């Protein structure tokens, strides 16, 4: 299935020049690195009141909302181009920041275990952060320690392994960015794959004087999904045939690349959907006991909470979904294996919509903290820009529920029409395919109504 694509660089030649500049990535990284460092320093030394601390407000409100509401749904992995976390490791490995250092990267050149070449570590990492989110999101010092741990782990891995092993296989954020980046209407691709096939030296993989070989261990010539390309733009610089470009394309086009469907990614979809549901209940719900369990006030209660979260996310949701998928398989008369994994990709639009709805519910209400915190990042009584005493003002609560309903409906309709398409794959009778999709669609509807109830009911 080919879809309409629009090559953004055909006309916008200036964009090509920007993307080929060696300055682009380090410049962006430098900006985020400054903010990131400030977030860690304020977290460690600033006020323990989260809503008055730059570290908490800028990371968990401003950055989070920007990432999940704007960057990932519209631009895919573009955050990974400017992410400060791998910067120290990458720069050390290259012994250069801007210029292309001709030497080989300095690492111990260990081999990353085959068994870990997937998303499972990222799944585990995300769950680890999720289990402690009641503490991480509310206590600046804990948040800072977690933030500090990320680049340190990345640095450690970059000493052992070449390239962005941390980003590709470990980073808990990278996992879901990769998953949801498939929804974005923007993609980095080659213009013509036959050019790649005939090109002997494969500079985009090997690197050349203009740039490094793909640090994400991707071969751009084969790229058909956004999931693992970190948009570092090295291949723009290395490709001597001017064969790399950015395309506009329909939302979610990557989800239909069914040969790439895998269980680890499917579980990422379950985990993200389940966590969106639980976060909505814990953080936006009225249940005080749930909040106190999640914030580790007593260990036994937290253990119960952790067990419950893991059971729901890893067993209940995938189990119910498996049941629905099996029913769909039965109705369709598919004999050649279950389509459970393939159907799980329909939860990508649904889950992303749920995260957007959740994040809006949080950001509209608490976004105004950003204004006061920017004048007084440590909560020490400074007033740098005169906004330190801005009162907490929730933004447009009337608008919020409309946006949430709209986004959730969009996610559901996208998921349902994907389901019909997946069910119909290889089937002759389209009406039967539609009927076969119904159990999976019912699951999607129930999930959507659950979110709706949490937000409006």
């Amino acid at each position: 299935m080919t879809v309409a694509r629009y090559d953004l660089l055909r006309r916008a030649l200036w964009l090509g020049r920007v993307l080929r500049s060696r300055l682009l990535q380090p410049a962006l990284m430098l900006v985020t690195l400054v903010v990131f460092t400030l977030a860690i320093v304020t977290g460690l030394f600033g006020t323990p009141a989260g809503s008055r601390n730059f570290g908490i407000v800028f990371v968990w409100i401003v950055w989070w909302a920007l990432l999940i509401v704007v960057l990932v749904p519209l631009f895919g992995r573009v955050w990974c181009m400017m992410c400060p976390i791998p910067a120290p490791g990458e720069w050390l490995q290259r012994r250069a920041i801007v210029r292309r250092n001709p030497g080989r990267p300095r690492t111990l050149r260990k081999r990353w275990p085959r068994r870990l070449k997937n998303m499972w570590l990222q799944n585990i990492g995300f769950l680890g952060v999720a289990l402690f989110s009641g503490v991480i999101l509310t206590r600046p010092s804990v948040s800072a320690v977690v933030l500090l741990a990320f680049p340190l782990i990345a640095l450690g891995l970059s000493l052992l392994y070449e390239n962005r092993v941390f980003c590709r296989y470990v980073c808990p954020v990278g996992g879901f960015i990769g998953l949801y980046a498939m929804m974005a209407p923007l993609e980095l691709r080659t213009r013509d794959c036959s050019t790649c096939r005939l090109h002997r030296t494969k500079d985009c993989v090997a690197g050349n004087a203009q740039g490094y070989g793909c640090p994400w261990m991707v071969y751009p010539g084969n790229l058909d999904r956004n999931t693992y390309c970190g948009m570092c733009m090295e291949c723009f610089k290395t490709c001597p045939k001017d064969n790399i470009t950015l395309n506009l394309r329909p939302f979610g086009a990557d989800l239909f690349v069914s040969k790439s469907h895998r269980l680890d990614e499917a579980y990422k979809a379950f985990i993200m959907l389940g966590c969106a549901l639980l976060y909505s209940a814990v953080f936006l719900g009225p249940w005080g006991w749930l909040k106190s369990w999640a914030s580790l006030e007593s260990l036994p209660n937290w253990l119960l909470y952790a067990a419950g979260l893991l059971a729901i996310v890893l067993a209940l949701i995938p189990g119910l979904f498996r049941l629905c998928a099996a029913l769909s398989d039965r109705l369709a008369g598919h004999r050649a294996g279950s389509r459970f994994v393939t159907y799980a990709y329909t939860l990508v639009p649904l889950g992303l919509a749920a995260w957007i709805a959740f994040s809006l519910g949080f950001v509209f209400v608490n976004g105004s903290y950003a204004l006061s915190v920017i004048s007084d990042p440590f909560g020490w009584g400074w007033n740098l820009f005169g906004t330190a005493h801005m009162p907490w003002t929730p933004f447009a609560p009337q608008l919020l529920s409309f946006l949430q309903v709209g986004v959730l409906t969009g996610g559901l309709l996208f998921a349902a029409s994907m389901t019909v398409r997946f069910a119909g794959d290889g089937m002759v009778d389209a009406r039967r395919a539609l009927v076969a999709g119904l159990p999976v669609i019912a699951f999607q509807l129930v999930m959507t109504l659950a979110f709706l109830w949490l937000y409006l009911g």
Partner: protein
Amino acid sequence: MRGWRWKREARLAGWLGVLALFILLLPVPAHGTLRTLHLDLDARQFEFTPPRFEVAQGDEVVIRLSASDVVHGFYLDDYGIERRVVPGVVEEIRFTADRAGKFRFRCSVSCGPMHPFMIGELVVTPNLPFFKAAGFVVLALGLLLAHRWRHLSAALSPQAEPVQGDR
């Protein structure tokens, strides 16, 4: 092919828009009972008790707000009501619940780590916004499936002639 398919999808989007507008504007008789409801609401780290309460649209609501540990606040979404409450001093908040739906009330005085998540719910019944939203979601899904039912059969079944240009 593409132009034709896009037109089809655009028509579906159009119908969805009509549906949304219809449900949004659906007139619902407002009923004005003249009840006065008294309610004790307690704030403490990091919850309100009761966490959720229901009143009927049109009710006059009188909340006696107290705080049992530190200073808290009460901010009611959409109603624009905000009050600060000090332990030991009961605050009386009086308003008419003229808008239906679920409205969160939030602590508005920084009171500790979980403060931003200290939330309670006031449901003004009948909760039409929720029922309308749920109805919209179900009908929109129905519309999508009906649309697919009509169009996909022709495109997939080999007996039918391939729809003009749809390859």
